[in-house]
C-alpha cells in the first residue's frame, strides 16, 4: 500500500495522498472480512454525503458496483444499511450517480430491503429508492399492472414515513399519461394521498408533489379531488400556501397552479388568485431550489391569462424579477428560464408591462442571456424579445434594430437547438416589422439567406417559423427587397415551399407569396416566372381540397394577381376553371359555402377583381362565372352572417347589374 507524504505541503502531494486514501478505502470494500467491509462502507458513505466532488471521484474508481454487490451478497443488517445509504447518497441529486446505481443492478436489491424486519434497513432502502425516483433516469413504473398497483398502495399505507413518502414520490415522478392518472384515481390514490397531507412535513411535501402530477390537465381527477369531503382538501392546500416552510408554500402553490390551469372554475375568488400570484413572487427570492421552481411556476400560472398578468404587474412583478436578474450572482439555469418566461408572459399582451420592462435597462441582460450555455435559457430570452417587440412604440424607437441586439439574434439562427431557432425566428418576425427605419439591419446581416436556409430545415416548426418571418419581412416591402428575396428562392424554391408536406408550412408559404405579389403591379410578375410555374402550383394546391387556412391564403394570392392587368386576370381564370375539367371540381363554389367567413370573403374579393368593370374582358369573365354557378351562388348569399362578406357580395352584385344582369 503506498504511503502518504506528510512533510511537503504542496498541492500535488495533497491531491495524491487523498487519491491514495480513496483507493485504500475502495480496496477494503472488497474485503471478505465483514467487519473490515462494514467499516469501509461507512467510511465511503461519510466521505460522499454532501460532497459532490468525492461522489464523482469514487464513481470513477468504480465504487458503485462494489457497494452494490456488498448490498446483494450480504445478510447482515448493518452492511445492508450502510451500503443502501451509500448508494442513496450517490443517487442524491447526482445524475451520474443514479445512472451508476441503476447500471450496477442495485434497484431490485434495494426493493427487497423494504420488506425487512429491521426498521433501519427499511428506512435506508426507502430513502435510497426515493432519491432514484427523483431523477429523470428512474425506471419506468407501469401503473397499469395490477401487482405494481398493489405494491404502490402497500407503500402508501405504510406507517413508516420514508416508505409512504417513497410511494408518493413514485407517483410524483413516474406518472405521465392521462390513462395512468385515471387508473390511479380509480384505485383510490387521491383518498390515500390526502391522508399524507395531514402528516409530517416530508409526507405533506411528498403528497403535494404527487397530487400535482395526478391532477395535471385532468379535469375529472381535479373534480374528484375537490369533491373529497366537500372541498376540505382544496382548502387545506390553499392554507398551506401560508405555511412556515418555503418548500411547502411552493409545492402547494404549484399544486394550485395545476388545478387552476386544468379547471379555472374552482378559483372564482379573486383573492385566492391574487394571493397565489403574490406568494409565488415572494418565493422567487428564495435562494434554493424553491426559488428556481417558483419562477417556472409563476410563468405557468400567468401564461395566456391577462387578468393574472395584470395582477402580477400591479404587485410589482417586473421590478422584482429584474432586480433578481440584476443581482449578478450566477443563477441556476432553471431559475433564469423561469424568470425570462415570466417576463415574456407579462409582456405578451400588456403594453404597460412592455414599456415598464424596457425602461428598466434590461436589454443588456437579455442580450447576454442569448449567449447562455443552456438552450432553454436562450429560448426563453428569445420569447421575451418576441413579446417585448410587440410594443410598436419601442420597436419604432429602434430599440431592437440596432446592431447590439440584432447581431446576437441573427447568430442564433445557426443555433444547434431547434427550439432556440424557432424562438429567435418568432422574435425576428416581430422585429422585422419595424417600418421606421429606411434600411434593415437584419437584411444587411444576410438575414434573408439565413431565413431561406431555415425554411428548408428538417423540423417543421422551424420551417414554419422561418416562413412567418419572411412573410413579415415581405409585408409592404419595396421592390428592391422583394427582388433580393426572389433571387435567392426562384420559382422552383417557391414551389417546394407551397408543396410542403406540412399544412401549416404550406399556409405560411402561401401567405408569404401573398405579401410578395401585393403592392405594385410588377410584383405580380413573380408568379409568372418560368412559364407561370408558381401560379400553376397555387392553382393545383387549391384544387386539392386544402384546409381552410391554406385556402384563404391561396385565394388572397389569386385576389392580388387578379388586381393586375388583363393578362393577369385571364391567367387567374385559367387556374379557376382549367380546361378540360375532368370532373366538376369547382373549388370556388366549395369555398363560398365554407364555414370560414375569411375564406368566403377572400373568394368574393377574387371575383370583385376579376369582374371589375374598368377592364375590357370583364364581361366575358362575368359570363363564365355565371355559367359556372358562381354568380347565382352569390345571390343566395346576400344575407351572409358575416358583415364583411355581405358587403363584398353587394359590391359584386352591383358590378353584375352593370353588365345587365338581374
Amino acid at each position, binding site marked *: 500500500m503506498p504511503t502518504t507524504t*506528510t512533510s511537503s*505541503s504542496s*498541492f500535488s502531494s*495533497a*491531491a495524491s*495522498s*487523498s487519491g491514495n486514501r480513496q483507493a485504500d478505502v475502495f480496496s477494503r470494500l472488497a474485503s471478505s472480512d465483514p467487519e473490515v467491509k462494514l467499516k469501509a462502507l*461507512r467510511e465511503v*458513505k*461519510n466521505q460522499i*454525503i*454532501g*460532497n*459532490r*466532488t468525492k461522489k464523482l471521484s469514487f464513481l470513477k474508481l468504480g465504487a458503485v458496483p462494489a457497494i452494490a454487490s456488498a448490498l446483494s451478497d450480504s445478510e447482515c443488517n448493518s452492511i445492508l444499511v450502510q451500503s443502501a*445509504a451509500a448508494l*442513496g*447518497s450517490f443517487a*442524491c*441529486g447526482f445524475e451520474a450517480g443514479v445512472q451508476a446505481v441503476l447500471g450496477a443492478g442495485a434497484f431490485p436489491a434495494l426493493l427487497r430491503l423494504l420488506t425487512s424486519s429491521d426498521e433501519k434497513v427499511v428506512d*435506508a432502502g426507502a*430513502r435510497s429508492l426515493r432519491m432514484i425516483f427523483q431523477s429523470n433516469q428512474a425506471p419506468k413504473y407501469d401503473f397499469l399492472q395490477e401487482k405494481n398497483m398493489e405494491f404502490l398502495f402497500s407503500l402508501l399505507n405504510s406507517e413508516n414515513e420514508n416508505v409512504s413518502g417513497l410511494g408518493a414520490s413514485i407517483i410524483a415522478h413516474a406518472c405521465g399519461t392521462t390513462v395512468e392518472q385515471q387508473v390511479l384515481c380509480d384505485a383510490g390514490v387521491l383518498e390515500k394521498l390526502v391522508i399524507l397531507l395531514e402528516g*409530517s*412535513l*416530508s409526507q405533506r411535501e411528498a403528497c403535494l408533489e404527487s397530487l400535482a402530477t395526478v391532477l395535471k390537465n385532468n379535469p375529472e381527477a381535479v373534480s374528484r379531488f375537490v369533491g373529497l369531503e366537500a372541498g376540505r382538501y382544496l382548502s387545506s392546500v390553499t392554507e398551506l400556501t401560508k405555511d412556515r*416552510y418555503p418548500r411547502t408554500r411552493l409545492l402547494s402553490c404549484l399544486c394550485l397552479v395545476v388545478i387552476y390551469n386544468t379547471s379555472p372554475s374552482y378559483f372564482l375568488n379573486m383573492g385566492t388568485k391574487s394571493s397565489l400570484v403574490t406568494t409565488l413572487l415572494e418565493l422567487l427570492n428564495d*435562494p434554493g431550489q424553491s426559488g428556481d421552481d417558483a419562477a417556472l411556476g409563476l410563468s405557468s400560472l400567468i401564461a395566456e391569462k391577462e387578468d393574472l398578468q395584470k395582477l402580477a404587474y400591479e404587485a410589482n412583478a417586473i421590478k422584482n424579477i429584474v432586480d433578481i436578474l440584476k443581482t449578478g*450572482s*450566477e443563477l441556476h439555469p432553471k431559475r433564469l428560464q423561469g424568470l425570462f418566461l415570466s417576463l415574456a408572459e407579462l409582456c405578451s399582451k400588456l403594453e404597460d408591462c412592455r414599456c415598464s420592462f424596457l425602461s428598466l435597462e434590461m436589454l443588456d441582460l437579455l442580450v447576454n442571456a442569448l449567449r447562455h450555455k443552456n438552450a432553454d435559457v436562450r429560448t426563453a430570452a428569445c420569447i421575451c424579445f418576441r413579446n417585448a417587440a410587440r410594443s410598436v412604440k419601442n420597436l419604432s424607437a429602434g430599440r431592437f434594430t440596432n446592431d447590439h441586439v440584432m447581431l446576437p439574434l441573427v447568430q442564433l439562427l445557426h443555433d444547434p437547438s431547434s427550439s432556440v431557432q424557432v424562438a429567435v425566428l418568432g422574435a425576428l418576425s416581430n422585429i422585422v416589422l419595424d417600418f421606421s427605419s429606411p434600411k434593415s439591419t437584419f437584411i444587411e446581416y444576410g438575414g434573408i439567406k439565413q431565413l431561406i436556409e431555415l425554411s428548408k430545415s428538417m423540423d417543421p416548426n422551424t420551417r414554419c417559423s422561418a416562413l412567418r418571418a419572411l412573410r413579415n419581412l415581405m409585408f409592404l416591402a419595396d421592390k428592391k427587397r422583394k427582388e433580393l428575396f426572389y433571387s435567392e428562392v426562384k420559382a422552383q424554391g417557391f414551389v417546394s415551399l407551397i408543396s410542403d408536406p406540412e399544412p401549416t408550412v404550406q399556409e405560411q408559404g402561401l401567405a408569404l407569396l401573398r405579401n410578395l405579389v401585393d403592392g405594385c403591379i410588377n410584383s405580380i410578375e413573380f408568379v409568372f416566372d418560368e412559364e407561370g410555374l408558381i401560379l400553376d402550383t397555387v392553382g393545383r394546391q387549391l384544387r386539392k381540397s386544402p384546409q381552410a387556412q391554406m385556402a384563404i391564403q391561396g385565394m388572397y394570392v389569386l385576389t392580388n394577381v387578379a388586381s393586375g392587368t388583363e393578362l393577369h386576370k385571364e391567367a387567374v381564370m385559367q387556374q379557376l376553371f382549367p380546361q378540360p375539367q375532368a370532373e366538376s371540381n369547382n373549388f370556388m363554389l366549395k369555398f363560398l359555402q365554407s364555414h370560414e367567413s375569411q375564406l368566403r370573403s377572400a373568394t368574393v374579393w377574387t371575383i370583385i377583381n376579376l369582374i371589375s368593370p374598368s377592364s375590357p374582358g370583364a364581361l366575358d369573365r362575368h359570363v363564365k362565372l355565371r355559367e359556372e354557378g358562381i354568380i347565382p351562388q352569390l345571390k343566395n348569399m346576400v344575407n351572409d352572417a358575416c358583415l364583411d362578406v355581405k358587403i363584398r357580395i353587394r359590391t359584386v352584385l352591383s358590378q353584375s347589374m352593370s353588365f345587365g344582369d338581374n
Partner: protein
Amino acid sequence: MSLFRIFINQDDDDDDMATSKKVITREEWEKKLNAVKLRKQDMNTLVMNFLVTEGYVDAAAKFQRESGTKQTAEIDLATITDRMAVKKAVQNGHVEDAIEKVNDLNPEILDTNPELFFHLQQQRLIELIRQGKTEEALEFAQEELAPRGEENQAFLQELEKTVALLVFEDASNSPVKDLLDISHRLKTASEVNAAILTSQSHEKDPKLPSLLKMLIWAQNQLDEKAVYPHINDLSTGQLEDPPE
C-alpha cells in the same frame, strides 16, 4: 325654534391621558384572571415541548412518566439522545464525529443541506487550526473546503475568510479571530440541531418563548388603553400593582 345649540361635549384626548384610560385594580384583575380556564394537559404539553426541543432527555422522560403526558406523535424521546449527542460533539469540537452521527441518524440531512455541510467542514478546519495542526489544516482546506466553493459560489466569501486564518501567524489576534471563538462552535451546533429537528418534522423552536413574547406584546398593546397590574419579571410571573 331655537337656532342655536351649543355643543359642550368636546372630547380632547390629548389633555387627560391618565384619567381617560380604564383603571383596573389588583383585585379586579386577579378576579378576571381566575375566571380564565386553562387545561393542565396544555401546560404539561408546553413543558414537554420545551424539554424535548431543548434536548433534556432525562428530564423529558421523567416528566412524561410523572405527569402522564401523552407522547407527541412527531418526536420520539429516543431520537433526542441521538440529536443531543450530535450537538454535544460539535460543542466540544469533535466535528468529524458529529458528521458521522448525523449521517447515521439521517443521511439525507447533509446531502440536501449544502450550507450546513459547508459550515460543518468550516468548523472542522477551525478546530484543526486551533490545535495548531497547520499542515493537516492546509490539506483539509484544499481537499475538502475548496471544492465546496467550486460547487457553490455563494460560499466563496466565507471560504476566503476561513482560509485567511491560515495566513496569519497568530490567528487569535487576526481580523478573523471570531471564527476561533467558542461561540462559533455553538452557532454551528445550533444549526445542526435545527436541521435535525426539521428533518424530524419537529419545529425547531419551543413554544414557550413565543408565549412569553406574546405576553409582553399584549401588555404593551393594553398599556395604551388601560392601567392594570403588570407582570414585569417573567421568571417569577409576579403581578405588580398599577402605578398611582
